[in-house]
């Protein structure tokens, strides 16, 4: 059995209240990065050979999985690409957001004392009982209180859903794609996370809906004080919303720069290539220059820079050594032998 290096020496630093976009083509490891950060990478089969993921001075890779749960969802939340597969089809929207809020409150009350007991879900919640039980099995003995109902409605209106009191009674299939994604965002935000990992949140949506969702994420970032890690394949989307852009290729970060610099002065040949691939005019006005070749097979990579086989500026050294990510200009890092290294 061979090994596939999905991520190879990836260094990433997310500051508070920042929106970082990770851009790359399919198979470049951007989703693996997202899943490792939130601790959802199935291990095995995946193996983390080396490295740390530090969140507020805690190494998320070395703490036990039970402990990790306290962070996952509550401190670091995630939005997935396809909202229909991430929502449970047999429970209403209200139940699903309610579950998230109940778990958050439970964790908060337990956090000071000790780890959560494994049967914490089964304990009956006594205060403020109304006749309406939650339909989520693990929370069946709990009640959806009036206050909880209000909070659910509050989050639904936060993500600009019209008639939230009716929407919470609906099932995911009754909502449009844009509304489903907004429900996912509401659920993530109800946790008031310090970091929101959004893996291609608008790829399955139409352009007008995409614009609505991106605008909403950007506004909520300010309201709730969240940092966002936006995983996307669309450079245009990144240019519109990100503060910093990280370009990945075949498991490596090849360029890391603030957004204005990256688009006005891209350094890495791959970034340049990606930018010249986007058609921005009619066929008479613009010439697109596709990058020749295709992404290398991660199972048997040749030594050296992974972009060497497609690079127009390839040199002898590129085929022997792996370039390191170095800061060539303030706030602009690139991994390429063309720039010192």
């Amino acid at each position, binding site marked *: 059995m061979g090994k596939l290096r999905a991520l190879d020496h990836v260094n990433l630093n997310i500051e508070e209240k920042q929106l970082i976009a990770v851009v790359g*083509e*399919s198979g470049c490891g951007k989703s693996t990065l997202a899943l490792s950060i939130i601790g959802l990478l199935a291990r095995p089969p995946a193996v983390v050979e080396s490295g740390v993921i530090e969140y507020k001075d805690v190494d998320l890779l070395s703490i036990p999985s039970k402990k990790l749960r306290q962070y996952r969802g509550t401190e670091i939340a995630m939005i997935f690409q396809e909202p229909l597969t991430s929502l449970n089809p047999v429970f209403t929207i209200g139940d699903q957001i309610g579950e998230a809020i109940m778990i958050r409150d439970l964790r908060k009350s337990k956090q000071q004392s000790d780890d959560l007991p494994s049967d914490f879900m089964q304990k009956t919640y006594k205060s403020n009982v109304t006749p309406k039980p939650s339909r989520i099995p693990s929370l069946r003995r709990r009640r959806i209180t009036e206050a909880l109902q209000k909070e659910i409605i509050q989050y639904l209106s936060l993500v600009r859903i019209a008639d939230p009191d009716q929407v919470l009674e609906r099932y995911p299939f009754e909502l*449009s*794609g*844009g*509304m489903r994604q907004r429900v996912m965002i509401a659920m993530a935000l109800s946790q008031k996370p310090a970091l929101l990992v959004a893996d291609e949140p608008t790829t399955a949506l*139409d*352009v*007008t*809906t*995409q*614009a*609505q969702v*991106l*605008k909403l994420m*950007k506004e909520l970032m300010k309201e709730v004080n969240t940092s966002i890690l936006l995983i996307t*394949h*669309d*450079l*245009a*989307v990144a*240019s*519109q*919303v*990100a503060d910093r852009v990280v370009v990945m290729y075949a498991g490596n970060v090849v360029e890391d720069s603030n*957004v*204005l610099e*990256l*688009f*006005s002065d891209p350094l890495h040949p791959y970034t340049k*290539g*990606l*930018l*010249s*691939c*986007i*058609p*921005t*005019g*009619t*066929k008479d006005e*613009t010439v*697109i*220059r*596709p*990058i020749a070749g*295709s*992404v290398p097979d991660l199972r048997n990579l040749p030594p050296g820079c992974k972009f060497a086989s497609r690079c127009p500026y390839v040199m002898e050294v590129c085929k022997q050594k792996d370039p390191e990510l170095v800061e060539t200009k303030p706030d602009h890092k690139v991994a390429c032998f063309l720039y010192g290294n």
Partner: protein
Amino acid sequence: MGIETFESEDSILVTRDLKKYYPIRREFNPFSRNPRRFVRAVDGVSLSIRKGKTVAVVGESGCGKTTLARTITLMTPPTSGDIIFEGINLTKEKVRPKKLYRDVQMVFQDPDSSLDPRIKIKETVAEPIRSLVGGTENQVREYVRTSLSAVGLSEEQGDRLPKQLSGGQRQRVAIARAIGPRPKLIVLDEPTSALDASVQAQILALLLDLQRKYNLSYMLITHNISVAQYLSDQVAVMYAGNLVEYGDTKTVITKPRHPYTITLISSAPIPNPRIRNLLDIEIKGEVPSSINPPTGCRFNPRCPYAEKICTEINPPLKEIAKGHYVACHFVEKTA
């Protein structure tokens, strides 16, 4: 409705007031007096495609653009209206499908599901040639060879199975299959939306190259404004089964006049962080259901200029400048 003015001498395909309704399953009640309901996927679309040119049909999911493509290729018969291909009215006269499909071919969105996973690439490409063009096995092989090399695939790759190729190469196979019988018109249904940016650029360049080489006409179905802008000569904007704007690509994209087109084009992100207009635009509501579309203009519940007349009368397409048609009661307000 200003239909005739669309057509010109060199039109290869013309549709007139084309409609496609799908019936909704009836409720299980034999005594029900509820009328049958329909999804009005395509509701009165007239457009024309000129020889050697590309018309892009743009719109969001559910606007009926794929149904329009399927209707034009007669994969699904239209409910009413005319489809005229090279002067022959396909809805009135009996046309042998074989003859039609020799001239009209299609490329689908997802090469994973449009290629047979169990037969070799060269067989996939040979199949339409064998059945639509005929000829000896040697001639078929010759056709296959030229088709494969036209899309940049080697003969050795022709012996592989689809799973042994990358996504971009598979889309090349789908294009090779379409150009195999030497058609005059190719309907491209989202040909690049399943592909990565760098591969998309390769396919776009290939499509332009083939168009010039074989004088092909394209009907491009896409939701991607920049792809439409790059590939097409004319753009038709669809909203909820209706055509709302039609004109030369440059005019429609740089000076859109229908309120929906304006919304659509400004929501397409531009790769320039210095022009952050994406976060400035105000978009209300969502695409309406095509079972119960709003009365009057389909866009009126979301339109900033809507007035009473918009809820009553669905505006016809009007020519506001030469070759630029807009279906809006208050088109002067968007100037």
